[in-house]
């Protein structure tokens, strides 16, 4: 039972991320690889704003103990600010592969900085300690809180869905589709291509940041082995399953892919360590989430997300 609460909560969070990503890919036609970075930054920022001062040897910036919802909102603002920079570079006149490579380059740089620069988010060991924010306030048991949290995630997902649906049916959504179908013709009818895509990009990033804020409370700990830019491909697969540019389909797609993935791969033999991609990471956080007293990062002791993601950095210096 609690296992399913956990899986469904996670799928709900990723559905919010997918709706944001679909704005960029499904509506505007740009294949972005930075979006997992926005979720991660949303998570990190929420934590440093909500878990209080760092205790040595842990190090991280800010270190406030704000109420969780406020932390999520401020974190989201930071995420949108980062997306504003990356989007300004990547959307101006890069398309297709060039756009994908640029966003991948940006998010990879972010990943490495987070991992290497310890004072930012405690480097490789990551952040932990955001355990059921508000549980005492709501006067709930651990399991009860997880169930309420699931409902909160679903309320957020529903609101996001209504908002995206509203955009989809509006002249704004229609204009984005026109831009996707034929940029030159859209420009010939007075549409600023960059500005149109940029607005959608920032809106999508805001949804990713919100998903990150929820994710941080869901897994209670976040470190570089809990995310890798490639994991975005699962979300892309889910969008493909549900249908690009179709909000309801995207949500269904995420649930199908996520639950299918998690459930099916549980029965596969796993290699010496966890499989790097998708299911492994999906399974990783559950463990932390299901153990209330988890004080160590969810999967910090496990092998790196991608054995050599930064391998050459160490190696080439040799």
């Amino acid at each position, binding site marked *: 039972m609690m296992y399913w609460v956990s899986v469904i909560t996670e799928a709900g969070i990723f559905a919010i991320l997918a709706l944001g990503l679909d704005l960029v890919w499904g509506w505007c036609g740009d294949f972005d690889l930075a979006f997992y970075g926005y979720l991660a930054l949303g998570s990190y920022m929420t934590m440093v704003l909500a878990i209080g001062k760092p205790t040595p040897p842990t190090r991280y910036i800010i270190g406030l103990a704000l109420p969780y919802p406020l932390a999520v909102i401020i974190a989201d603002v930071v995420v949108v600010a980062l997306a504003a920079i990356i989007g300004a570079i990547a959307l101006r006149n890069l398309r297709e592969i060039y756009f994908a490579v640029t966003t991948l380059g940006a998010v990879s740089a972010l990943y490495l900085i987070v991992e290497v620069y310890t004072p930012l988010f405690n480097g490789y060991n990551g952040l932990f300690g955001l355990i059921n924010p508000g549980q005492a306030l709501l006067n709930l048991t651990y399991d009860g809180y997880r169930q309420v949290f699931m409902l909160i995630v679903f309320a957020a997902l529903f609101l996001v869905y209504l*908002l995206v649906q509203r955009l989809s049916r*509006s*002249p704004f959504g*229609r204009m984005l*589709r026109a831009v996707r179908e034929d940029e030159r013709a859209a*420009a010939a*009818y*007075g549409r600023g291509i960059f500005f149109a895509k940029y607005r959608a990009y920032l809106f999508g990033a805001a949804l990713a940041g919100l998903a990150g804020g929820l994710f941080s409370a869901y897994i209670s700990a976040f470190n570089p082995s809990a995310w890798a830019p490639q994991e975005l491909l699962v979300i892309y697969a889910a969008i493909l399953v549900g249908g690009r540019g179709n909000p309801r389909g995207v949500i269904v797609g995420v649930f199908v892919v996520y639950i299918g993935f998690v459930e099916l791969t549980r029965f596969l033999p796993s290699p010496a360590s966890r499989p790097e991609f998708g299911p492994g990471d999906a399974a990783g956080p559950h463990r932390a989430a299901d153990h209330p007293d988890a004080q160590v990062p969810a999967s910090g002791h496990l092998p790196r997300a991608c054995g050599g993601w930064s391998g050459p950095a160490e190696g080439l210096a040799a």
Partner: protein
Amino acid sequence: MSGHLLEIERLSKSFGGVAAVRDCTFSVGEGQVVGLIGPNGAGKSTVVDLVSGFGRPDSGRITFAGHQLVGKRPDIIARLGLIRTFQTPREWRQLTVLQNVLVAECVFAHESLWRTVTGARRIRREEGKERIRAMEILERYQLSALRDTRAGNLSGGQKRLLEFARIAAADPKLVFLDEPMGGVNPVLGARIGDAIRHFADEGHTVIVVEHNLPFIEKTCDEVIVMDAGQVIAQGPFAGLRDDPRVVDAYLGMDLSHE
């Protein structure tokens, strides 16, 4: 030179050392239908691109309704009231016919992200007016029955008509038509001719790039002839027929027939 809607002065553009347009100078008065003709490679389409902001001239000036256009982005130029078409119809394929016309109406205030998030209902109410206008336009081009069809599924001729419906919706001061008769049958051709005359009657200025000389003769008040990137003649069609430079450019083609 005053009183002209569009003035082009000494416009030049070369691609990889080859001059496509050289010192091209002409102007077009308000409310006229002007044909831009010339042999293949004369630089007509390049002029369309340069004027509409899809290419940047190496030198020269383009003045449109008092605005300097060189260096401006295509969307800015479109917002000033200069709409262009492309050689092949570029409809938004996944949008319906009605949606195509609604986008072309260019009511930018309705596309505000902030207003969409905060007051979608008000936008929908306000858009009622535009929908009625769009339906009237579709009626005029006999596309009303197809309004919910995806534009990508239209026939070639219907796509041409949709292009005219979109221009009518945009209501520009000046429209640049790049070969509107390409691949069009005679019946549809007559309707396109009517549509262009209708634009002029409503006070729009039209510049047509076209190879079909009988069509140009019938439709245009004035003709500009280009060859090798330069304007070699400008004036009423009848007067140009015997102009030796024009005859030369067309290598002695019989200009009275196709």
